[in-house]
């Protein structure tokens, strides 16, 4: 079987205005990877959540900063790398509360990382404070059964 490798990169100003384009970008790449419509929707959502976090938390809506999304596909998996040079954070310290708690505290956020972890097979942060914060996510093309 021919080994296929395809790379896609998108770099846009760090503004929520660009989330729609980011989703189109993921949708195109994931469709070419062979995912069906429902799976493509999941990948779009995971990347949207990750980029929204960069735009809001890493760069505080400063549109002079840039969000870079790299997608890579081969015969086995689809992977996404998103890097930011923002303030960084410790993913292990993020206390993921249950929906019930969030509702009773009238919180409007706190679901993004849980979504990402559920939607993808792999979600891995590499944080080097002050240097760069890298997020790697991947999803296998054909689940081994």
């Amino acid at each position: 079987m021919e080994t296929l490798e395809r790379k896609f990169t998108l770099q846009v100003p760090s503004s929520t205005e660009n989330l729609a384009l980011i989703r189109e970008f993921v949708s195109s790449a994931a469709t070419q990877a062979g995912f069906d419509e429902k799976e493509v929707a999941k990948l779009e959502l995971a990347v949207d959540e990750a980029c929204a976090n960069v735009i809001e938390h890493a760069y505080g809506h400063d549109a002079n900063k840039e969000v870079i999304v790299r997608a890579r596909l081969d015969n086995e998996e689809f992977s996404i790398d998103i890097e930011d040079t923002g303030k960084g954070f410790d993913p292990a310290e993020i206390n993921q509360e249950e929906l019930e708690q969030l509702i009773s505290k009238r919180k409007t956020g706190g679901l993004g990382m849980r979504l990402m972890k559920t939607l993808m097979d792999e979600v891995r942060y590499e944080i080097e404070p002050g240097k760069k914060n890298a997020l790697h996510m991947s999803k296998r093309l054909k689940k081994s059964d």
Partner: protein
Amino acid sequence: MPNPFLVATDSEDDFAVIRLDGAVDAHTAPQFEEAVQKVIDDGQNNIVVDCEKLTYISSAGLGVFMGFVEEVREVGGDIKICGLSEKVKQPFEILGFETLFHFCPDVESAKEKFSEQTDWEAAY
């Protein structure tokens, strides 16, 4: 742009129906939030969110449901969600919204659902 977002609010009988059209993401969620806030400020706590034309929702949009539902339930109201397509329903399901919100096929059935008593407190 592929997905212009529109939100429209109607008063129907004793209900406020908020119709979402397009994609609710971190960019457009503030418009949705504003619409819900306005309905509540106007004293209406029986809210139906019609998602028939919703093409996409991220956690920023889900957060709007989370942030307001306690407030309306405290005064005997609710936020019912209707018209979700299979694809758009995914994030709601993943996060367990179906145990904490009523999902209805359409606006009419959502309105009827308000006559049922639900002890949401027991759920959380």
